[in-house]
């Protein structure tokens, strides 16, 4: 790990000048793009490969490798779709990047497009993020006016158009092929893979899909080099700076940038510790889809592989913290309600399974559960896991399975008491 960690992705947060092109350039912006344009496209891909950068959207797939799957040549159209759908509950890091440093994202997208010879980039942004969309549109306009986008990018002869495309409220459009369908003007129902988007993506053409944070890393990798990037992190497979969005029962919720692989304890300390000094009961390390962990994992290194080994996943690095007053059944019931609502309805295991999970958890929470409900939940999970068309099904079972496996006593208490054993917390005194 580097001696003293200086923020990379969030270095311009809180500097309003970064919102303008002039300010961004004064802060060193667009140097990465200028440098990339002097390189061979394949050399750009190699540098990103060498850096070990893995996707920050959820799956942690190596970005450089993904880019190298795109067929070479400029004769056929190719696309970059930047995934700014950010709908995984607990996740709010991409919004921070877009609202505070829009040009950093535009620069990252432009470098990626150059590397894979894509002439069009869509930034698919969730419909609710109007503020981010406005800020990005303004930044795009400035970039066009300055010749950073358009027919002749920075005088290099490379042609690139970039557009903001707003979604309309659907978590499944964060899934990459659901996103492509939605971009094409359809219901956001995921496609069967293969073919993968690198072969048949947007409008039938080869397409790269990367998360906002992933792409924001790229200018820095090009400017400062893959070796610098690799010097940050746990090991060669978990490299670079990482944004952690921490929420729930912590004293100072927020987005924190740390070297990837910081421990959960260190992260919690940086966020001011537990809210009201209460005891930690559980935490979710990577968004609503990630299995829940217990306090015995407090020294867990928060990188892709270590969190996976501990039986969860780093996902979008959205960390949700729950204290001793939290009812785990109620919490997981809320997440199941989310997955049921967001299931696109296309395949049976996910459509029916998420519905049953919500129903069973709801009845448990309301004291109407039976001793057999834990087994029933596991059997529903078994019927969804690996059986659904896209990964939403697997995402939905993450929290449920971990509830049954790691908090069995809480389910038992609900059944035995014929009621939820936790008083419903009141957060505000006298309605004030």
């Amino acid at each position, binding site marked *: 790990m580097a001696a003293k960690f200086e923020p990379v992705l969030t270095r311009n947060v809180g500097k309003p000048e970064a919102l303008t092109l002039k300010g961004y350039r004064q802060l060193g912006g667009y140097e990465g793009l200028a440098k990339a344009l002097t390189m061979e496209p394949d050399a750009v891909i190699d540098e990103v490969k060498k850096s070990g950068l893995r996707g920050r959207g959820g799956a942690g797939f190596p970005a450089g490798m993904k880019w190298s799957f795109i067929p070479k040549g400029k004769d056929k159209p190719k696309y970059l779709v930047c995934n700014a759908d950010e709908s995984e509950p607990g996740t709010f890091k991409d*919004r921070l990047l877009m609202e505070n440093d829009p040009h950093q994202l535009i620069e990252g997208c432009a470098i990626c497009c150059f590397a894979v010879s894509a002439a069009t980039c869509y930034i698919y942004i969730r419909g609710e993020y109007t503020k981010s969309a406005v800020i990005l549109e303004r930044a795009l306009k400035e970039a066009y006016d300055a010749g950073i986008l358009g027919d002749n990018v920075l005088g290099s002869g490379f042609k690139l158009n970039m557009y903001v495309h707003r979604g*309309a409220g659907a978590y499944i459009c964060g899934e990459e092929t659901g996103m492509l369908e939605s971009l094409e003007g359809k219901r956001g129902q995921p496609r069967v893979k293969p073919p993968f988007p690198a072969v048949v993506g947007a409008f039938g053409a080869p397409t790269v899909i990367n998360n906002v944070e992933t792409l924001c890393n790229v200018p820095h990798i090009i400017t400062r080099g893959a070796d610098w990037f690799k010097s940050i992190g746990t090991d060669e497979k978990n490299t670079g700076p990482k944004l952690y969005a921490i929420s729930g029962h912590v004293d100072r919720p927020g987005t924190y940038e740390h070297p990837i692989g910081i421990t959960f304890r260190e992260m919690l300390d940086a966020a001011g510790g537990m809210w009201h000094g209460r005891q930690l009961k559980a935490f979710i390390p990577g968004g609503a889809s990630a299995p829940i962990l217990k306090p015995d994992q407090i020294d867990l290194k928060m990188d892709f592989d270590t969190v996976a080994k501990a039986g969860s996943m780093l996902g979008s690095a959205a960390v949700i913290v729950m204290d001793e007053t939290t009812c785990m059944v109620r919490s997981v019931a809320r997440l199941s309600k989310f997955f049921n609502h967001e299931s696109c309805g296309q395949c049976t295991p996910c459509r029916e399974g998420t519905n049953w999970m919500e129903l069973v958890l709801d009845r448990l929470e309301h004291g109407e559960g039976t001793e057999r409900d834990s087994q029933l939940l596991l059997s529903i999970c078994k019927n969804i896991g690996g059986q659904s068309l896209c990964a939403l099904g697997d995402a939905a079972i993450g929290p449920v399975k971990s509830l049954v496996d790691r908090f069995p006593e809480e389910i038992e208490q609900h059944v035995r008491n014929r009621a939820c054993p936790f008083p419903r917390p009141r957060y505000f005194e006298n309605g004030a």
Partner: protein
Amino acid sequence: MSVHEPASVKPPGPQTRGGGLSAASRAEIDGLRERYPTTEAVLLPALHIAQRQWGGWLPDEAITAVAEALDLPVARVYGVVTFYDLFHQKPVGRHRIRVCNNLSCQLRGAEEILEVLHRELGVGEDEVTPDGRCSYVHFECLGSCDTAPMMMVDDEYHENLTPNRVRQVLKGLK
């Protein structure tokens, strides 16, 4: 190349009836065509534009108008409208309030925020106040979990809410 302000940032216009898409909406939709290799891809932005014209929701005539403008089957457009949470097929208030009550917000009091709205507005979720001013719904995570509890009023995020803060926000809505 035309760069547009995103559709919903402008306030919804007065409700038009029977006239189909306004000239302004039509021009805005046409300006987007060059961005995409297919006309169908203009559908989501076009629906945002139409919903703004029709005062925040999409009656059948709006759906038909968009279908005609983009030369798509009405059924196709209808299918898309029903898929997305931000498109409405029922009248909404002049101000639309969305309260996140997903996990991080639930852990910081979202339920009480919904109770306050119910008490102050005197209507249930998805109903419009008799003066047409507001409607509210609970919503999935809005990406503002660090400032929970929170709600979205039209396009604006209101964060770190308390019941008093909610009452203040409501007072400011015309």
